C-alpha cells in the first residue's frame, strides 16, 4: 500500500518574474509503507523541492500529493497534522536548534503536537537512545556539543514526533567519515526498530547503496528513475552520464565485465563484492 504518492506534481518558483524556474516537473511516483528510499540528484535537480512537498511545506503549482490516498491539501487547516505524520529533517539541521537544553530542543516537536509530559519524556529518551545520545547529554546546552552531536540532536527532534515517514535531506553533509557512519548506522537501527518509511537524500551513492530498498533519481526537475536499488545500478552508465557518482566498487566491476570477467550481477557494496569474489575463487579451487 502506497503511503506517499504524487500525481503530476509540478512546482514553479517565482512565477511571472524573470527568475521563474520550474523545479519539479510533472513527477508521479508511489512510495510504499516501510520502505527505505534513497533520493539522488545533482544540486538543482529539484530533489529538495520535491521532498518539501511531501510534508506540505510547499504547495504544488499543479498536481497532487497524497498521503494514505488522501490529498494533503484537501483541507488546508489540517496541513499541520501532515507535518507530524511526515517528518522532514533539513540539510544542516543543527542550525535550527534554539533551546537551552538538548532535552527541550528534542521535545519541541512533540510539545507542538500537544502531547502530555509523560509521553514527551518517553519519546525524548527513546529517540535519544535511537540516535545514540547518552542520557547525561540531555541536560546540557546543545550549543556546547560537537558538530556531529548537534546534528543528531536535530534529527532526534524530528524523530521524536514519531512520523510515519521520515525524510532526511543530506543527513551526513559536512561530517567526517566517523560521524557519517555513526549517523547512517543509527538511522538504519531506527528503521529496523520502527519499520517506518524513510527517505534519505544524498549525493553519494556509496552512502545509500548499502541499505536503500529503492532509489529515486531526479535530473533536471524530472523524475529520472525510481526503481529497486539493483535495477538502478544496472543503469550505472546512464547515471554517471547525468553527473552522479556511481559507487567505486560498481565501477570496478563494470570495468571487469568490460574486460571479460562477468559476474552476471550488479555489484554495489564492498561486502557483496567480497562474497562474489570468494565464491568465484572457491569454484576455481574445486575445479
Amino acid at each position, binding site marked *: 500500500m502506497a503511503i506517499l504518492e504524487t500525481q503530476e506534481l509540478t512546482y514553479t518558483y517565482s512565477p511571472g518574474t524573470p527568475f521563474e524556474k520550474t523545479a519539479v516537473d510533472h513527477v508521479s511516483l508511489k512510495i510504499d509503507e516501510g520502505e527505505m528510499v534513497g533520493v539522488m540528484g545533482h544540486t538543482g535537480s529539484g530533489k529538495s523541492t520535491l521532498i*518539501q512537498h511531501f510534508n506540505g511545506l510547499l504547495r504544488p503549482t499543479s498536481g497532487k500529493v497524497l498521503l494514505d490516498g488522501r490529498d494533503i491539501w484537501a483541507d488546508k487547516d489540517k496541513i499541520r497534522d501532515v507535518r507530524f505524520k511526515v*517528518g522532514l529533517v533539513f540539510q544542516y539541521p543543527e*542550525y535550527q536548534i534554539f533551546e537551552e537544553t538538548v532535552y527541550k530542543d528534542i521535545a519541541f516537536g512533540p510539545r507542538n503536537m500537544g502531547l502530555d509530559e509523560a509521553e514527551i519524556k518517553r519519546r525524548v529518551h527513546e529517540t535519544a537512545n535511537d540516535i545514540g545520545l547518552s542520557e547525561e547529554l540531555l541536560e546540557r546546552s546543545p550549543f556546547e556539543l560537537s558538530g556531529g552531536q548537534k546534528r543528531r540532536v536535530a534529527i532526534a527532534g524530528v524523530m521524536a514526533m514519531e512520523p510515519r515517514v521520515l525524510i532526511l535531506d543530506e543527513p551526513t553533509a559536512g561530517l567526517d567519515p566517523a560521524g557519517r557512519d555513526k549517523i547512517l548506522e543509527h538511522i538504519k537501527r531506527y528503521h529496523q526498530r520502527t519499520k517506518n518509511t524513510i527517505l534519505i537524500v544524498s549525493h553519494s551513492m556509496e552512502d545509500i547503496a548499502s541499505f536503500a530498498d529503492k532509489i529515486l533519481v531526479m535530473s533536471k526537475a524530472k523524475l529520472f528513475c525510481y526503481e529497486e536499488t539493483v535495477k538502478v545500478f544496472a543503469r550505472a552508465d546512464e547515471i554517471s552520464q547525468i553527473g552522479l557518482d556511481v559507487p567505486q566498487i560498481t565501477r570496478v566491476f563494470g570495468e571487469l565485465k568490460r574486460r571479460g570477467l562477468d559476474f552476471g550481477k550488479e555489484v554495489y557494496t564492498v561486502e557483496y563484492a567480497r562474497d562474489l569474489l570468494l565464491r568465484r575463487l572457491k569454484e576455481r579451487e574445486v575445479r
Partner: protein
Amino acid sequence: MLRDITIGQYFPGDSVIHKLDPRFKIVITILYIVMLFSGGNYICLAVGAVFTIGAILLSKIPLKMFVKSVKPLFIFLLITAFINLFFMSRGNVLLHWKFIKITDEGVNTSVFMVVRIVLLIMGSSLLTYTTSPITLTDAIERLLSPLRKIKFPVHELAMMMSIALRFIPTLIEETDKIMSAQKARGAEIDTGSFTTRAKNLISILVPLFISAFRRADELATAMECRCYHGGEGRTRLRQLKSAPRDYIALGVTILFLAGVIVLGRLF
C-alpha cells in the same frame, strides 16, 4: 512569502538604463525627486509621469514589478489620502455630515499626493532594479568622497553598506529555511493565536542571530586573510567611467526639471 520582497532587488539586464553610470543614476534620481516635489500642479505631475514611464519603458523591466513595489506601501498611501481628504478645510465644501467635511481642495490634494508618492516609489525602485547593490554603494562612495577631507569615514561607511546590502538576500533565505525547519516540527508561524505565534518567533530568532554572528565572524576572518585594512590605497576592479549617454541622460533630466519649474510658475 518572504521571498517576494522586492525592495533592493536587482534585475540584471542590458538596457540603456542598466548601462548608465551609477553615479549619474543617483544624481538623476535626486533631481527626479526634486522634480516631483517642485511642481505644484497637475501639468507638472503629468510631466513627471511621462518622465517616469519613459524611463521604465527604456529599462525593459516588466511593469508588474513596479506595481509590486508600490503594493507594500498601499496602507501608507491610503492613510495619506484619508488625512488629506478629511482634514483639508480650505476650498468649497462638497459634503458635510456631522463633523466630517470634504472639500474639493481636499479631494484634489489627496489625489495629487497619492500620484506623487506612487511616482516617487516607482522612480526610486527603478534605480535599485537596474543597479546592482555593489555598484550602487560604489557610486555612493565616489559621490561622497569629497567628505573624506573632513575625516569622514566614507570608505568604511560604503563597505558597511555593501555588506549589509549583500546579506539581505542571504538572511532572508536563511530565515525562510529556519522557518521551514521549525514549521516541519509543527511550529505555528503563519497560523495559530497571537501568543503561540509570538512564542514560536523565538524558535526562529535564536537560530537566525546565531547564524548571523557566525557569518559575521567568518566574513571578518576571510577579509583579514585577504589583508583587508580599509580604504587607504585601495584600487578597484571596476572603474566607473562616464560615457556620452550619461551626460545626455543628465541633460534630459535637467531639461525636464527646468520644464517642471517653468510650468509650475506659469499655471
